[in-house]
Each structure stands twice: as structure tokens, then as C-alpha cells.
């Protein structure tokens, strides 16, 4: 998880607290893209950069009180997540950041028999590697559209785990969810993308 281009948290934090401009530039270069990626998952493309910039100011303001219960990177991303979530709530652009599992079962119940085994099992896909699937422009668009329609916290979970490779422990701290909720968010997001690919493959 450590960024090889950055000094350790132990070295970096005192320098940031001393308002060292070089350290500001180092940390922005290391994390701003990732912060925009996370903000984009929660609030969308249009204001993601603005949210990430707002988060930097919040990071500097809160840094003297940073208790080191996580890495600096995880703590910064949590500030981004909270800034983005409060922005969403403020703009009332969404009723809820997530949906309950009961409302959206992983598999359409019509595809299962009463004994909970397959009635309509998954069909074979025409491709069996990511590169072969992504060779189709239509399928790339289909995946992108499916990602765009995910609830914000599901999109954030899949962005941090499957795109950025963060650990579940870090993701749960960043999104402020329990470990079991974090896993449910991630699995629902992946399943929705899987269903989108399946629908495309079935056409």
C-alpha cells in the first residue's frame, strides 16, 4: 500500500504540519488522481475535482488532530469520502447512498427454483478473458453504463477494491461501513456489472 515515491508517514506528517511546500507537492502528486477517482465514484464526474480540492483544505485543517489509527492515505481518502457524501446530501441529489439487500437480490428470483437451485442458469460468454471482452466497444460502454447506475457507495467500493486494489479493511475505514456491509456493497456492485455483461452476451 505504501507509495514508493513518497516518504513514510512518519517523515511526511511533521513536514506537512510545518507547511513544507515540497511535501505538499509530493503528496498531491501521489494522491490527487486517486482522490478524484473516489470522488467521481460518489458524486459523479462534474464536481469530482472540486470535491477533491475541497478535501485537501480539510486534510490540512484536520492534520494536527490526526491520531494515526490508519495510514495517512486511508485517512485522506476518508476525508474525500466524507466531503463527497456531505456534498451529495447537501445537494439532495440522492435519497440514499445505498439500497438494502432485500430490495435487490443478487440474482433475479425468477431464475431460481423454489429449492434455491438454478432454473435459468448462466449461459456461456463468447469471451473468456478481460481483453477479449473489452475488445467490444459496445461491451465497454455497457460496463461503463452499469457502473454509472450503481448506488454511490457500491461504486466507491468497486472503485477502491477492483480498480485501485485497496484492502477491504482500508475500504471499510474510508467509507465508514462495517466489514460485513463493505463486503455486501462490493458483491452487489460486482454482481450488477456481471449481470450487465450477461445481458449483453445474451443479445
Amino acid at each position, binding site marked *: 500500500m505504501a507509495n514508493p515515491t513518497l516518504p513514510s508517514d512518519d517523515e511526511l506528517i511533521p513536514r506537512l504540519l510545518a507547511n513544507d511546500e515540497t511535501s505538499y507537492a509530493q503528496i498531491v502528486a501521489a494522491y490527487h488522481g486517486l482522490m*478524484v*477517482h473516489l470522488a467521481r465514484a460518489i458524486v459523479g464526474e462534474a464536481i469530482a475535482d472540486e470535491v477533491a480540492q475541497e478535501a485537501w483544505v480539510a486534510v490540512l485543517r484536520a492534520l494536527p488532530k490526526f491520531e494515526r489509527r490508519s495510514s495517512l492515505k486511508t485517512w485522506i481518502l476518508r476525508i474525500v469520502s466524507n466531503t463527497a457524501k456531505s456534498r451529495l446530501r447537501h445537494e439532495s441529489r440522492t435519497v440514499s447512498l445505498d439500497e438494502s439487500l432485500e430490495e435487490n437480490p*443478487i440474482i433475479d428470483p425468477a431464475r431460481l427454483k423454489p429449492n434455491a437451485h438454478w432454473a435459468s442458469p448462466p449461459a456461456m460468454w463468447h469471451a473468456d478473458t478481460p481483453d477479449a471482452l473489452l475488445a467490444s466497444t459496445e461491451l465497454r460502454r455497457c460496463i461503463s453504463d452499469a457502473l454509472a447506475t450503481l448506488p454511490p457507495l457500491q461504486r466507491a467500493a468497486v472503485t477502491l477494491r477492483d480498480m485501485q486494489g485497496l484492502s477491504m479493511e482500508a475500504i471499510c475505514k474510508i467509507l465508514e461501513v462495517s466489514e460485513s456491509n463493505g463486503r455486501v456493497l462490493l458483491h452487489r456492485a460486482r454482481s450488477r456489472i456481471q449481470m450487465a455483461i450477461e445481458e449483453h452476451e445474451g443479445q
Partner: protein
Amino acid sequence: MPSCKDITEHSSDYLDRNLPWWKRMGYWLHLAMCVHCRRYVDQLKLTIDTIGKSPDATTPNVSPEEIQAIVEKMKRSTKNKDG
């Protein structure tokens, strides 16, 4: 042994190795016998790998000019706080 529905609900935990060993055994036994669930789990694995390689997975680029502009903003914010 888990049902096909159980398999679909916990397949991320299986792939991410988050299941306790006894559940993992039941899962493994079910997959050994059920071609549909094997396909379902293989396709979930392929989905995860595809998400990671999709254009949406690319971390946004940050130019040196953008970095400098953010640093200036950070400096201003600390001056305001100190002042």
C-alpha cells in the same frame, strides 16, 4: 451444503478468500458438482478482472500545473488559518 442461491450470494467472499474454512469446504463441494455455479463463479471472476482493466479503472491524470494550483490553494488555506 450451500444451495445455488447461497453460492451466488457469497461468491465474492469465496473468491476473495473471506469464507471460514468449513464454509469454504461446502462451497468447494457444491462447485465440484454444479456446472452452473462453476460457470457463475468463473464469470464473476472474469467480471472482477474486466472491471480492473476497463477504461473506468484508469486513475485520472494530474498535470504539474494542477498540482501547483492545489499547492497554492493549500498554502492560502494555512495562511488564512494562521492569520
